[in-house]
């Protein structure tokens, strides 16, 4: 019996959409099998079917050659299937060991017994080189270690079919390297791995075979060693994709935004989340703030856009001190902001597309008269933007933002912010969670804005993006600016060391 898991001709339908249409996935014992596809291609649905969260309309699942019915995650656990979710499912105020045994606790007379569990966890972590401290609280350990806890959780439950859902999204280059080695070690011990990702580089690095999904349909399975990255990208997107971003050398002109010794105090944690950060953004350049998530980038941007007050320092926009301006005053004096979390900040999901497109401009003369909205103008505006930015939706201007795909939601925000035609465009992780096609599109838009003479401030966690798009790089670590780099000179590895805090330049 060659295959350990076979999902044959799976069809799963949701109202109005076939999320999986006759998809077949065959996992060999001891291999790393990549599952590649754009957002919304049906990867997560397929894995949810395997994990028992959805029941497919058609198709059969075989585990170790026997046909099985997986109706809930407990069934999946019993068949030895474990999943590391993209967003870790950990209890933050529990210790590592408490999290690992959660649901499988040993008790004696009704009291929890951790001794055996700790021993088993220590054995496992030695065997698979998964370094963790069992008695630490989850909230005190790094993201990389949290992921190792998730992996240990599966191993503790004796899973030998492991699903990794976008595991590298939150890791530094060094941590990614480490994870790749762990995955290889796991397969040497006879575990089989399904790796869900849209990062081709990683697939090339670790996977043995790769199955590609596009728009819910099964495109094919290829041998990774003999297939080029370009070929896989083409299978995923359905057309040729350019990985190199064409852009000319930046021609920076006068300073637009001057950030001078800014500090932001976090009252909850009683410490600075941003400490003495200074930089300038000029017209005609893209300045990128790189760093690992949670090193003060969010707070820094919130202080520039006015969502969060600064405790120290000053902000100057086009020569005007805006340190104490309200959000609206800043918007009106020339700040556009593509926010980090498009659902939380960027969109009112229950509003229609056209209403989302006037979120910061509804009070302008163009869209209202004596307090009454001008619906005709709003419709003209949205039809125009839908056309220009190729926003796709079910019902055009009246589509509710909630029902749109992530890529198109992001396009709505990009269209709105670019259309406001301000001197400074702040984009925070504008490509987060988007597929290759949409990423390409947004990068082009950012560069077009730069070429049109705008100052662009980009915050990104993706090193590829940092290297390809930006003209200048600043790295933040623990709320401080630890170095400035030229992307044409510096290496990814070098940046990784700064991001992890093991190096810093003293300017």
């Amino acid at each position, binding site marked *: 019996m060659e295959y350990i898991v076979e999902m044959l001709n799976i069809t799963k339908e949701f*109202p109005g959409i076939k999320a999986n249409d006759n998809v077949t996935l065959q996992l060999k014992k001891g291999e790393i099998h990549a599952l590649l596809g754009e957002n919304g291609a049906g990867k997560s649905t397929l894995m949810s079917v395997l994990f028992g969260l959805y029941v497919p309309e058609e198709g059969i699942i075989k585990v170790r050659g026997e046909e099985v019915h997986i109706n809930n995650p407990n069934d999946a656990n019993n068949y030895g299937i474990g999943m590391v979710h993209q967003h870790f499912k950990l209890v933050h105020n529990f210790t590592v060991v408490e999290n690992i045994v959660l649901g499988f606790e040993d008790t004696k007379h009704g009291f929890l017994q951790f001794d055996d569990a700790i021993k088993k966890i220590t054995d496992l972590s030695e065997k698979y080189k998964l370094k963790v401290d069992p008695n630490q609280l989850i909230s005190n350990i790094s993201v990389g270690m949290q992921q190792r806890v998730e992996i240990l959780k599966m191993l503790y439950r004796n899973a030998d079919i492991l699903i990794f859902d976008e595991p590298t999204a939150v890791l530094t280059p060094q941590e990614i390297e480490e994870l790749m080695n762990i995955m290889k070690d796991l397969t040497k011990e006879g575990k089989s791995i399904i790796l869900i990702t849209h990062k081709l580089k990683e697939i090339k690095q670790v996977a043995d075979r790769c199955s590609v999904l596009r728009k819910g349909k099964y495109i094919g399975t290829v041998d990774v060693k003999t297939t080029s990255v370009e070929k896989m990208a083409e299978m995923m997107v359905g057309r040729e994709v350019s990985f190199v971003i064409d852009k000319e050398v930046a021609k920076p002109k006068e300073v637009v935004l001057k950030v001078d010794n800014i500090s932001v105090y976090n009252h909850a944690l009683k410490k600075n989340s941003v400490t003495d950060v200074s930089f300038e953004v000029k017209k005609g350049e893209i300045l990128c703030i790189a760093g690992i998530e949670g090193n003060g980038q969010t707070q820094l941007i919130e202080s520039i*856009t*006015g*969502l969060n007050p600064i405790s120290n320092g000053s902000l100057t926009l086009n020569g005007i001190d805006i340190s104490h301006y*309200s*959000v*609206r*005053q*800043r*918007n009106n004096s020339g700040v556009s*902001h593509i*926010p980090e979390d498009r659902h*939380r*900040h*960027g*969109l*009112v*999901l*229950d*509003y229609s597309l056209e*209403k989302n497109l006037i*979120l*910061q401009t*509804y*009070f302008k003369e163009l*869209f*209202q008269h004596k*307090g*009454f*909205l001008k619906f005709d103008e709003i419709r003209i505006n949205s039809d125009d933007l839908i056309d220009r930015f190729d926003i796709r939706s079910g019902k055009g201007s009246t589509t*509710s933002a909630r029902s749109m795909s992530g890529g198109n939601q992001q396009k709505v925000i990009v269209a709105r912010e670019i259309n406001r035609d301000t001197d400074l465009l702040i984009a925070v992780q504008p490509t987060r969670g988007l597929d290759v096609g949409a990423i390409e599109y947004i990068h082009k838009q950012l560069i077009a804005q730069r070429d049109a003479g705008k100052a662009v401030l980009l915050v990104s966690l993706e090193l590829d993006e940092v290297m390809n798009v930006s003209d200048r790089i600043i790295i933040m670590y623990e709320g401080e600016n630890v170095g400035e780099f030229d992307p044409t000179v510096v290496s990814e590895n070098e940046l990784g060391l700064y991001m992890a805090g093991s190096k810093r330049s003293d300017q």
Partner: protein
Amino acid sequence: MWEKVKNYLVANALNLNIGFFLFLLVFIIPQFFANNDSILLVIRGLIVATGGGYIFYKLLLFRKNNPNFKPSESKLLVDVAGSIIAILTGLLFGLILMLIVNPGQAFGGFFVILQGGFRNIKSFGDMIYFSVPIILTGLSVAFAFRTGLFNIGATGQLTMGAYAAVYIGVKWGVIGEFSPFLHWLVAILGAIVAGALWGAIPGLLKAYRNVNEVVSSIMLNYVAMYLNTMLIVKYIYNRDFARALAPKSTAVTPLMNLHYLLPNSSVSGGIVVAIVVVIILHIILNKTTFGYELKAVGFNRDASKYAGMNSKRNIVYAMVISGAVAGLAGGLMYLVDGKFLQPLNVLIPEGFTGIAISLLGLSSPFGVLLAGLFYGSLKQGGFYLQLYSFTPEIIDIIIAVIIYASALGLFLQKFVIRAMKKREMLIDQKPEEAVEGSDA
């Protein structure tokens, strides 16, 4: 400017004509035939026929303009269907309860509930009368809810509004001698202002001190209740009956000729005020930048902050408006002949019913209007239920079950969508079958 007005008149000629015709039928014509029952009957028939015909015409027009309309894709229809299922669930539960309590009379009694306010002319008028405060408190809760605030203090605002209205009605008779209508208007305005001020307190606390509006407004209910007792006894007490003095006749809500159309019932002009408020709130919520902001704050406070909206100010405004509407409800409730404010230390239940009505009406002004009338109808059913030796409390149980069922709305909607889909598929298949048949 004139050009605009003219265009508007031409474009909406049908709507305006029908509106004017209905206005004449309801408010003007009946008074000339007050003693002629058969002509009144004809007038009522005309009103129903015109209104019904107009709605039917609009539906046909909609079908014609949207030939590809799929019910399952319309959020409104799915929501409404969810509410209707909730109502049916509640009624069914009531029927079961009645079968347990008194099997012999159960079906007769159930029929009375279904008849509700449509039993006769009097019950129809009473239904409207009783639903006015419920509609208004429902609107109050719904409006705050659209801004993301849970105004559980409608009772307190209603109490303050009622006191202010009655106080002005009793003490400011001078205005009444000058103009009766003005006296009523001032009393109503007093109610609105008192309710608005009472609503502003939790709004200000929420906006500037981040005090949970549920807690602060529920506590203010008790403050209002005791304050009401204290102020009645101090200023407008009728010792003989241990209740507040009756407002002067000039302050009583005008009947607006509705009693000609619906004789012998308690109907008054309050319903007209309620409908005007429905329309105003609908316009505020859906047509203005203010409503755009309020709803944005309600849907997603973070996004409204990001967009530079002043969410603190909006919270205060929303609570002020919500309180004003609840206060108005109080004013209309007690500016009635034969109804007296009492120093009883009891929370006025209409405020809490408003929460239920707001839920059932999907927090939309027109939805609340319909839900409020439905509630009034059930109440009338409960009243006549006593003929079958049931207690009217069964109605309250039915309402409670309906509210539980609407809270399960999401769960119910799943079934609704499925049923609608099935129907659409059947409809889609029919033409194909025909084609196949013709091939054969």
